[in-house]
């Protein structure tokens, strides 16, 4: 599971089941093609504070994003590249997601979170 998906994922059937805390057992960094337009469009959809919270909990990407989205983010290549890396190039392979509302745990196995 990539962090872009994690930023969209919510504990089903809850009101405040977002963001899910990540307990990482194993993680991989992968490479994905950089599409600046796509990343810029994702900015509007992201819950940026939640993303910062997640990033702060993962040592591999900790501190790589600014505390606020830059004003002219669509032209800010450095920011878009950092965001690209965080969103698409970090794979959580094994671990769990923890619902902030109910504390329910959802396992991640072989990269697939199970929300059942």
């Amino acid at each position, binding site marked *: 599971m990539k962090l872009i998906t994690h930023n969209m994922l*919510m504990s089903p059937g809850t009101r405040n089941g977002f963001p899910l805390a990540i307990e990482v057992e194993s993680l991989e960094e992968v490479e994905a*093609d950089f599409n600046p337009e796509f990343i810029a469009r994702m900015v509007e959809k992201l819950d940026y504070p939640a993303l910062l919270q997640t990033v702060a909990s993962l040592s591999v990407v900790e501190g790589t994003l600014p505390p606020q989205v830059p004003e002219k983010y669509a032209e800010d290549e450095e920011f878009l590249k950092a965001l690209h890396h965080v969103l698409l190039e970090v794979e959580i392979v094994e671990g769990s997601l923890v619902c902030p509302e109910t504390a329910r745990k959802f396992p991640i196995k072989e990269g697939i979170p199970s929300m059942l």
Partner: protein
Amino acid sequence: MSMSHRSRPEEQAPPDVFYNQAEAEKYLHNSRMIEVQAQMAERALEMLCLPEDESALLLDVGCGTGLSGEALEEYGHTWVGVDISRDMLGVAQRREVEGDLVHQDMGLGMPFRQGVFDGAISISAVQWLCYSDRNEHVPRLRLHRFFQSLYKCLRRGARAVLQFYPQDAEQLQLITASAMRAGFGGGLVVDFPHSSKAKKYFLVLLAGLPDEGFSMPQALGEEIAATQVQQTAAVNMERKQHAKRQIDRRPGKRSSKGVTKDREWIMKKKHSQRRQGKEVCNDSKYSGRKRSKVRF
């Protein structure tokens, strides 16, 4: 009646049981199944009418082995897939699809925040919600939870195009009415309505107000004036016959899996689709671009 006499998989076993390892393997090797999934996904994508020249974030409900998702990838979109079968999702991983996969029962709702997806597709999955595999399964409630959560996670003005196989008129009504009750606009498009083999049902749904004037896509048929679009904005599904339409010839059969679709192939295909008057995304620099695969 013994199991073997029942023709529909939905009547044989729950989806997570029916779509086991052996069934999932078929999606790796059976070229007919591969072709059908890809074709229907392409048709669904076409009816999403996404803004041209943009790569979108899409949801694939009942994504299975990722054949439908791969059709989305070919047009440069990023997708997230949801499926109840771990075996199907396992095959999707072996296929090294680019989409992220989430294990979930759609009858429990889509586990996503509000307004995040630019569109959703579903290929041959939604009819599974009409069956009650456990005592606590009430199809009406499961369908409602599904459509409500689908509506919620779509951006306002986004579409969902769901191809499904209703067992009978009752299921068709149940599914369509449930979508409308959840707030969706839109209705049913029936491709090839006069061919019992090729006939395909697509629910074309709109979440919220359309970006620009919403018009239902034209159905595909084999003969002139064969279009049959059922407008179901009113739940009673009145039929509306469209008199004239273009003759559609589906573009050449999709080449079998394993052949990489290069940019030239895609451009040629888009060109031929445009010539047939179909809605086709604009070409972008991402068209047909080889992108890196994520490996575990």
